């Protein structure tokens, strides 16, 4: 294992060259701006909590704020800070509901799905009407490919949330599970009738609609909904990733390039940008491949595999290592089973000419009656 890790590590990570800067005025690092009122507020909360670390309401407030910040700034360090705030309750026998929920969230981010489900089950045992817990549970089951369980977790949302949220939850599962056309229509219906939902909820629904349309092979409508979603929030990371994938499939890399030319580039978006640059033969292509290689290597060093799906794509299409890619894709398939998890495993299997490796995916497509034009085409190439 140790040997394996060492062999993944690029040379310059092992042999970086430390230096002494020439001038005191040289800026070494830009910190998350401390004048930002949000960060200032957090700092005050943190000082308060250091003085009285056992006040649950204070700790939960701080932890939630860190989670939110971690999302908007795409920075996992805040996840750690959130956990630290809840340390007195983190490992006790029956943590309070608020702590369980945050713990489940962090476990999910670390891809410890089963642990997360356990915590959510504890929450629902105490509070059977906890919408947030039901929704998170539904999402985890869906990521794991347990569509029956996912649907069962969506149903209790009907009386607990507005129509858009519950319909999105149910339609998304059903569309993966043999009712693609019907659920697409019912979600279209819910979106067009909705007038009062907050933009984030609407964004979620519309993004999923776009993905459903793409799976059904309805490119024009997919494009329409992606544009709609961008109108709600053009900076949303998930949306940008999904739309970029759609554009790459359509052979429109230059649109991807202009879409992703921002400053903050999460690994997943950098991957899509680099895939586009490969087709466009852009000058920055090589540099971005190296950056991605380093980021994956540094992540691997931690001993936690958090980006397997992305890493498999990287290995297959940017490093041209089909065998390595297949291994990662297989490892990934054990953890999550969404469209891209199936797709990258099929694509890697095709490049390796290894039908047996793809069999679990093919079986799952048949078993779940998955209506996904692209996956079907790929599976067809293997049999």
């Amino acid at each position: 294992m140790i040997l394996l890790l060492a062999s993944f590590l690029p040379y310059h990570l092992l042999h970086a060259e430390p230096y002494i800067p020439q001038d005191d005025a040289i800026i070494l690092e830009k910190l998350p701006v401390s004048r930002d009122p949000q960060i200032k507020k957090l700092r005050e909360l943190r000082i308060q909590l250091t003085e009285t670390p056992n006040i649950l309401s204070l700790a939960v407030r701080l932890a939630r704020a860190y989670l939110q910040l971690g999302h908007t700034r795409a920075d996992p360090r805040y996840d750690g800070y959130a956990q630290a705030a809840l340390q007195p309750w983190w490992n006790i026998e029956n943590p309070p509901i608020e702590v369980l929920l945050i713990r489940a969230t962090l476990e999910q981010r670390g891809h410890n799905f089963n642990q997360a489900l356990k915590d959510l089950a504890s929450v629902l045992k105490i509070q059977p009407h906890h919408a947030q817990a039901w929704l998170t549970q539904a999402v985890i089951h869906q990521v794991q490919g347990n569509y029956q369980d996912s649907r069962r977790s969506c149903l209790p949302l009907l009386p607990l949330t507005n129509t858009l949220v519950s319909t999105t939850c149910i339609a998304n599962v059903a569309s993966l599970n043999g009712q693609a056309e019907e659920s697409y229509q019912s979600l279209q219906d819910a979106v067009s009738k909705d007038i009062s939902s907050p933009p984030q909820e609407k964004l979620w629904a519309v993004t999923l609609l776009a993905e459903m349309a793409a799976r059904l092979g309805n490119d024009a409508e997919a494009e329409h909904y992606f544009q709609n979603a961008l109108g709600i929030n053009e900076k949303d990371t998930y949306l940008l990733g999904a739309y970029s994938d759609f554009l790459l499939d359509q052979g429109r890399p230059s649109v991807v390039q202009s879409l992703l030319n921002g400053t903050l580039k999460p690994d997943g978006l950098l991957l899509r940008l680099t895939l586009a640059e490969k087709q466009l033969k852009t000058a920055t292509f090589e540099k971005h491949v190296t950056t991605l290689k380093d980021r994956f290597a540094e992540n691997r060093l931690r001993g936690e595999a958090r980006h397997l799906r992305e890493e498999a794509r990287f290995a297959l299409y940017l490093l041209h290592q089909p065998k390595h890619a297949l291994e990662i894709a297989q490892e990934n398939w054990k953890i999550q089973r969404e469209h891209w998890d199936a797709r990258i495993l099929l694509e890697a299997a095709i490049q390796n000419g290894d039908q047996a490796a793809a069999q679990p995916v093919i079986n799952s497509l048949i078993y779940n009656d998955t209506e996904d034009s692209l996956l079907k085409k790929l599976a067809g190439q293997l049999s």
Partner: protein
Amino acid sequence: MKRLSASFLICFLFFQFTEITFAHKASDSYLRFNIEDKTIQGQWDIALRDLDFAIGLDGNDDGHVTWGELRTKHEAIEQYALTRLKFHQNTEACWSKPQQHLVDSHTDGAYAVLNFAVVCPDPISILKIEYNLLFDLDPLHRGLLQINDNGQVQTGVFSPKEPTRLLDLKKSSPWSELFQFGREGIWHILIGYDHILFLISLMLPAVLYRKNGRWHPHDTFSPAWWDVLKIVTAFTLAHSMTLSLAVLGFVSLPSRWVESAIAASVLVAALHNLYPVFRTRLWIMTFIFGLIHGLGFASVLIDLGLPGQSLALALAGFNIGVEIGQVVIVSILIPLAFLIRRSWSYQQIILNFGSIIIGLVAFMWLLERSMDMNVNMGTW
């Protein structure tokens, strides 16, 4: 309760999208030790962002950390970091002596680099490292350890669940590596019944010769000894070749196939004693089967975990060990066989009946290994 508040939902809707949403990596520090002739030199890279969060680096609070600001904090960094990295030699504490402060960058930003020496009161043999940096502020923080021990590189990860690590500096000499793998080699042939039975089957008729369909005892030791030498040499050459090829990754066969073939080789060797085909060229058969036994040795050596730097030493050590074990078996067996070669019981009971028993055992192994059956004899 009828409706979720929007901010609640926003937070949770996006938790499913974890794969792609991080622009940064989680917090890591890079801790490197260079061990040369028992002196330990440390280099520790800690992210400026982490140090700022822990002890504050941005003196003028403008959101930038300059080299000037960092320089004024060097002592505070030594104090903060080195008290969170403890070394023990047995029960005695060692201490770290800070030497130099530098700067470096990793994929997620700038890092302070602290060079230090580890000093212990006694010569170091076993060193315990206890890592406790930042775990209280960020439980997702990891300390990524890399040790270069006289040319051998090891890596490890410190986490809140595993904050300590033992470093055994005695094991590191190349000779001890050779010795350690040598011992494994001896051990493996002595407990590997299939290899022993194969050798025994080949050795049993060495003190006899065949004429007109009957066995006759050799008159002197010398022809017996030559037979043994030829067989042992052929076996050694053959298994050394395949052992090396397999360990170096040039040959790879499914272990079930190899194990079954080894069982088959024992069966054939035993049957050959009952129905001899080769009179003088037994070494050819030995050579061919020896190739397969070498693959069996290789799987043991690979399972032991191979050191990257001293692969050749490990291979040599293991091979020498196997040869020593083999010599031990031969030097016990052959003189004994030579002593009793003329007796009726040697030919009838030991050679014939012994070969039948060995053949039966080998047949069971063959069934068990090739068909994955449990005949309850392979657990010998």
